[in-house]
Every structure is written in C-alpha cells, then in structure tokens.
C-alpha cells in the first residue's frame, strides 16, 4: 500500500452527536486545564490525565485506525525530515547561544502568544485533538 493509496478520505464518525459531545467535553477540559497556574502540580496533572487516557486507549482499546502506508517515498519523506531537523537545530541553537532576547527559542516566542486564556484554551484543545488524531493512526 503506498502513501497515495492510503490518502485519508476525511472519514467521519458514524455518530456525529457523540462526536460533537466529545469535542465539547474536550473543550471544557481544555478551558479548565489551560487556566491552571504554570509550574504547579495541578497543571502537571492537567496534562498527565489526557496523556494517560490516550496511552490507555492507544494500547488498550484502540479505535478503528486509518491504515498506515506500508512504504512511503523516501525523497518526499526526506523533505519533512530536513524541516524537522532544521527546526530542532534552530531551537537548540537558541539555547546554546543563551541569549533569548537576541536568539529567542520557539517556546519564548509562542509563550506570550498563548497567554490569554481563550487562546491558551484553544491551543490546549488543538493539542488534545492532535493526540486523538495520533491515536487513530
């Protein structure tokens, strides 16, 4: 099976009401969890719970998965690897330079953007949905 043959067809759940309720529940959780004070035990628990839940689902009761391709085009894949490696290197060089004002890390740039609670809540929800998307793979 090639990458082209497994292109996702935008599969929709057969239970749209349940899906909507789940997203609303996740949004509520994201709102609460993203309002917890950083560097606190409660904030840690706020991210541990979804991590543990998705881990249990992934290995215990995985949902119907989108089939992974048996092989992918190495050249096409290498473009992604180059970008990810460059991003990591760019981030690492920020820490190496140890001057966040001159060479800010991605974290230092993103943190102020996600400080408002609605934005932080939305980002948390995106993180939760990304985790669910990974479990379905």
């Amino acid at each position, binding site marked *: 099976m090639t*990458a*082209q043959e*497994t*292109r*996702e067809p935008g599969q929709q759940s057969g239970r749209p009401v349940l899906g909507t309720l789940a997203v609303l529940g996740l949004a509520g959780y994201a709102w609460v*969890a*993203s309002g917890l004070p*950083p*560097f606190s035990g409660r*904030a*840690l628990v*706020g*991210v541990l719970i*979804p*991590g543990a839940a*998705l*881990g249990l689902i*992934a*290995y215990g009761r995985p949902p119907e998965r*989108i*089939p*992974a*391709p048996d*092989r*992918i*085009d190495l*050249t*096409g*894949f290498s*473009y*992604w690897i180059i*970008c990810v490696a*460059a*991003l990591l290197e*760019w981030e690492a060089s*920020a820490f190496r330079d140890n001057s966040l*004002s*001159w*060479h*800010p890390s*991605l*974290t230092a*740039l*993103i*943190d102020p953007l*996600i400080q408002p609670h609605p934005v*932080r809540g939305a*980002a*948390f929800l995106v*993180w939760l949905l*990304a*985790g669910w*998307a*990974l*479990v379905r*793979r």
Partner: protein
Amino acid sequence: MITRTITIAGFAALISVMFALEFMARRGSSRIPTAGQWLGYLMRSRTGRALVLLGWWWLGWHYFAR
C-alpha cells in the same frame, strides 16, 4: 536586534515550508507524504507509536504545564 529578526524569520520560514509540504502532499499526484501518513508510518511499531505519543505529550507538558 537584527539577530532576533533573523531568528524569527528562520522559524517562520521553516514552519511555512512545513505547511507548504502538507499542502503539496494533499495534491493527488504528489510523492510527498502528508504529516499524518509519515507519522502513521513511524507508528506501525509499538516503539514508534510510544515515541510519537511521548513527543505529543512532551509538547503539551512543555507549553501548558511549564
């Protein structure tokens, strides 16, 4: 402050290229896999799945618990 500008431009360029790759990958004739496809490919093994999920969790911890 030109160093700061170059740094931000570097991040913006890399992220833009990744969006462009995803866009190109979703065209029918592309040989480039989508992010979902190559992540799914990496997650075929239990170890790969664990590492990818761990990376996802680390991102959440890094941005929302710290």
